[in-house]
């Protein structure tokens, strides 16, 4: 390719992006102010965030390809191919799913640090039963920032790093179906996090992650961060969802039949369906909320003919599938990892897939269990009670499949396996406590209390984050080429497991004893339990530092290189060399067996990596 004389290009990297984003923000504010609406500049701030994000994405280089195709301009700098192997590729727009996976991983770990610090500040404030440590305004801002940051993280923490990196490898593809969409689904996440953090400059927002109007309509300019940041995460969910579905449906290698698909890929598949269909509802609700705040519509204001129930329904219609967006990939991880270390075939593969789809399907029919005490028409309450309790059937199937796989197994107790066991224990408690909340009479007492807070931390942190840790110890050797220290890993597991339960189990009791969520001041009788929880939470944070230490230790200090298949696993991603070659597979692999056929006499290797003679590959 010849470099044209009149190159338009700027260097495409995040610095250019930030340099463009700043004038973008002020252009948006100026334009919004031009409309002259007396709305405390909310129009300008929302437009500013949107313009800044668009400018950032242009600076990263998202406009280059369309401009090249439309006008024939040579805008992409011609790069030295060597640059695509150095550390610099992680700081640029990359269309390599492996680079995007690592970008996602590092970004989300940094966000997790901030979310975790938020949790520590919250717990510190609760050392005393009044607002002396943290003023109530700051406390409520902290609650909102911690909650929304964690929702951003948990929406993508498995699908982003591990889904993007592993799905093509596990199905025998060389790339994702839509690499640019894949890159977009990553590059909107850092702006979303920054915009959310920007809420602190406006004094935060007072609504928690649920954003209930009229409070969210009255709230200050921090609320605009919630709207735009959350909308960007909706964009990430939709783009990633459609991309994963297209990839899994369209780019499977020859012989990768639906019954040979690894369970992790099934987890991503079902979660992608939910993300694709649920996130647009969130986006629509956020646009309506933004209009209520800026151009004085009244979708959610009862005083002008609207209804806050509209928001509550739209939000939870998204919000309940959203929590299964968190957990379905975690189910996939558990069912993926356990057979490899049990050294047994997955017990009831098809049943497990049915379980995943059952959870995904039922998740659309339960959202009003969040509204049992809201005063909404009671006719459907029995239905929502039943549909919510029905979810325990497909969830129970997942447990059955895992327990059946462990039955008479030869379990190899590695660190990932420990985290899988921890997941089973924690998610069991999370699931059972969910039944308490689904039952209308008991929900009257438990709704909005620390009981429900403990419930969803058990499912999300005890479930999804424990599965994430299992995935990290299991797959990071393939992704980074370095083994994590198993000794530190074991310390990490036991520390985290004990600290987690010590933190969150007392909160069930705190909730039963009359402590509502999101309060800076509480009944002084509960100060003992709350202090116990806070101390435990510090230890829990410490366990995350152990994990971070393990990452740093094994990446930078003791570079113990990982072999191609350290776990002697059958599945396809372990059959490619470490580090994974740029094209993943020399030729398109031909899949000849399932991934879990341990102990089956004369089982064939999972794939013929020599490929079809004459096949061109390239998905």
């Amino acid at each position, binding site marked *: 390719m010849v470099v044209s004389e009149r190159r338009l290009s700027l260097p495409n990297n995040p610095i250019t992006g930030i340099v463009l984003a700043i004038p973008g923000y002020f252009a948006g504010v100026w334009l919004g102010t031009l409309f002259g609406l007396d709305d405390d500049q909310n129009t300008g701030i929302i437009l500013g965030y949107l313009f800044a994000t668009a400018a950032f994405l242009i600076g990263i280089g998202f406009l280059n390809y369309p401009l090249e195709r439309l006008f024939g301009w040579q805008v992409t700098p011609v790069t030295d191919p060597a640059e695509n192997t150095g550390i610099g590729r992680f700081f640029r727009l990359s269309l390599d799913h492996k680079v995007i996976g690592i970008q996602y991983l590092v970004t989300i770990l940094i966000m997790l640090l901030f979310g975790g610090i938020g949790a520590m500040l919250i717990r510190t404030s609760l050392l005393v039963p009044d607002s002396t440590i943290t003023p*109530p305004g700051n406390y*409520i801002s902290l609650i909102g920032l911690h909650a929304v940051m964690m929702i951003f993280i948990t929406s993508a923490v498995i699908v982003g790093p591990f889904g993007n990196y592993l799905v093509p490898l596990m199905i025998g593809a060389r790339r994702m179906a839509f690499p640019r969409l894949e890159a977009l689904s990553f590059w909107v996440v850092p702006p979303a996090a920054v915009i959310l953090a920007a809420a602190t400059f406006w004094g935060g927002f007072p*609504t928690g992650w649920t954003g*209930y109007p*009229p*409070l969210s309509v009255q709230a200050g300019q921090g609320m605009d961060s919630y709207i735009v940041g959350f909308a960007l995460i909706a964009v990430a969910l939709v783009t990633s969802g459609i991309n994963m579905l297209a990839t899994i449906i369209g780019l499977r290698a020859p012989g990768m039949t639906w019954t040979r698909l690894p369970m992790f890929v099934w987890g991503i598949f079902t979660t992608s369906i939910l993300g694709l269909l649920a996130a647009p509802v969130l986006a629509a609700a956020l646009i309506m909320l933004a209009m209520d705040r800026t151009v004085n519509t009244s979708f959610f204001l*009862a*005083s002008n003919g609207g209804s*806050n129930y509209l928001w509550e329904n739209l939000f939870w219609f998204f919000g309940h599938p959203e929590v299964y967006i968190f957990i379905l990939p975690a189910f996939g991880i558990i069912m993926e990892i356990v057979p490899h270390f049990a050294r*047994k*075939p997955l*017990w*009831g593969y*098809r049943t497990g897939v049915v379980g995943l789809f059952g959870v995904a399907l039922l998740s659309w029919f339960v959202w009003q269990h969040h509204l049992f005490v*809201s*005063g*909404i028409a*009671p006719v459907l309450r*029995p239905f929502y*009670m*039943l549909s919510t*309790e*029905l979810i325990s*059937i497909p969830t*129970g199937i997942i*447990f059955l499949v895992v*327990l*059946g796989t*462990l*039955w*008479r*197994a*030869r*379990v*190899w*107790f590695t660190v990932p396996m420990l985290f899988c066991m921890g997941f089973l224990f924690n998610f*069991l*408690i999370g699931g*059972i406590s969910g*039944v*308490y909340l689904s*039952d*209308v*009479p*008991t929900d009257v*007492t438990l709704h*909005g*209390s620390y009981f429900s807070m403990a419930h969803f931390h058990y499912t999300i942190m005890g479930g999804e984050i424990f599965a994430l840790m299992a995935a990290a110890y299991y797959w990071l050797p393939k992704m980074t080429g370095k083994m994590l220290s198993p000794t530190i890993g074991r310390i990490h597991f036991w520390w985290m497991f004990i600290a987690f339960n010590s933190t969150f189990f007392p909160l069930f009791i705190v909730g039963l*004893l*009359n402590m*509502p*969520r*999101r*309060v*800076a*001041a*509480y*009944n002084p009788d509960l100060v003992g339990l709350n202090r116990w929880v806070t101390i435990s939470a510090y230890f829990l944070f410490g366990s995350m530092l152990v994990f971070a230490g393990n990452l740093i230790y094994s990446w930078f200090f003791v570079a113990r290189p990982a072999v191609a298949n350290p776990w*002697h696993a059958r599945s396809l991603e372990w059959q490619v060399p470490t580090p994974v070659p740029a094209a993943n597979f020399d030729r398109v692999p031909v899949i000849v067996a399932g991934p879990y*056929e341990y102990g089956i006499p004369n089982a064939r290797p999972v794939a013929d990596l020599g490929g079809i003679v004459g096949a061109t590959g390239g998905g």
Partner: protein
Amino acid sequence: MGAFRIEEADRPHLVRLLVIWIVLSAIGVLAVLQIHYPPYDQTVQGQDQSRTLALLTALATPVFIAVVMMVLYSAVFFRRTTPELVDGPPMLGNTPVQIAWVAISAIVVLFLAVVGIATLASSNVAQAVGQPGRAIGQAGGQTGSGTPGGAGSEMQVQVIAQQWYFTYRYADYGGVETTHLYLPVDRPVELHITSIDIIHSFWAYQLGVKADANPGVDNIFHVTPQKTGSFQVRCAELCGLWHGNMADSEGQVVSQSAFDIWIAQ
């Protein structure tokens, strides 16, 4: 049944697990039934909720013990003992076991749902019923309960939430407004919960009452106190700066005569 033929290798494990499970479940169920579950028995509705909590816990205990026991048992007895990797027996699944598992969980779930719906349908039902479009400050006596038959016996109390306190309006007593909620014992009460600014949630813990206060909506909750004593009121829906302090611990259930004296003041 032939389909349920138990393999020789499975039998010792199954026998052990069954014995452990029965013993631990019996102990566990007896233990959790000793607990006094909130919101205790100050109202008929609260007592129902306490009973339901006890029932759920008694049902959850054997399930919890079964799964934890299986996980721990696998960790102890199905651990690899050889230094080198060995594959386990290639079991691909067992249809009767899967069907039985699904059937048992379905039975438990349906039982829970039936119990829950029965509690809902009973006269003591504790549920919020919203009615749109009720303006605040309308003639106090005419709150329009929608239950004309029982209107004579049910005392009407409007709970008005605003940032950051609750006001109580006794419609049957000429619209007296107070800042603490007093209720006479043994008399059904119809609470009308509403808000004049944003969403709050009226949570009277010991009464077993929680209902959202929505602007422009009349949210109805029936409750019958059956024991005298004090109770706490809190807001249970995040409502801005002083949400945590939107609480009152001076609610009282008193005798009818004491109530009459108090309301006359």
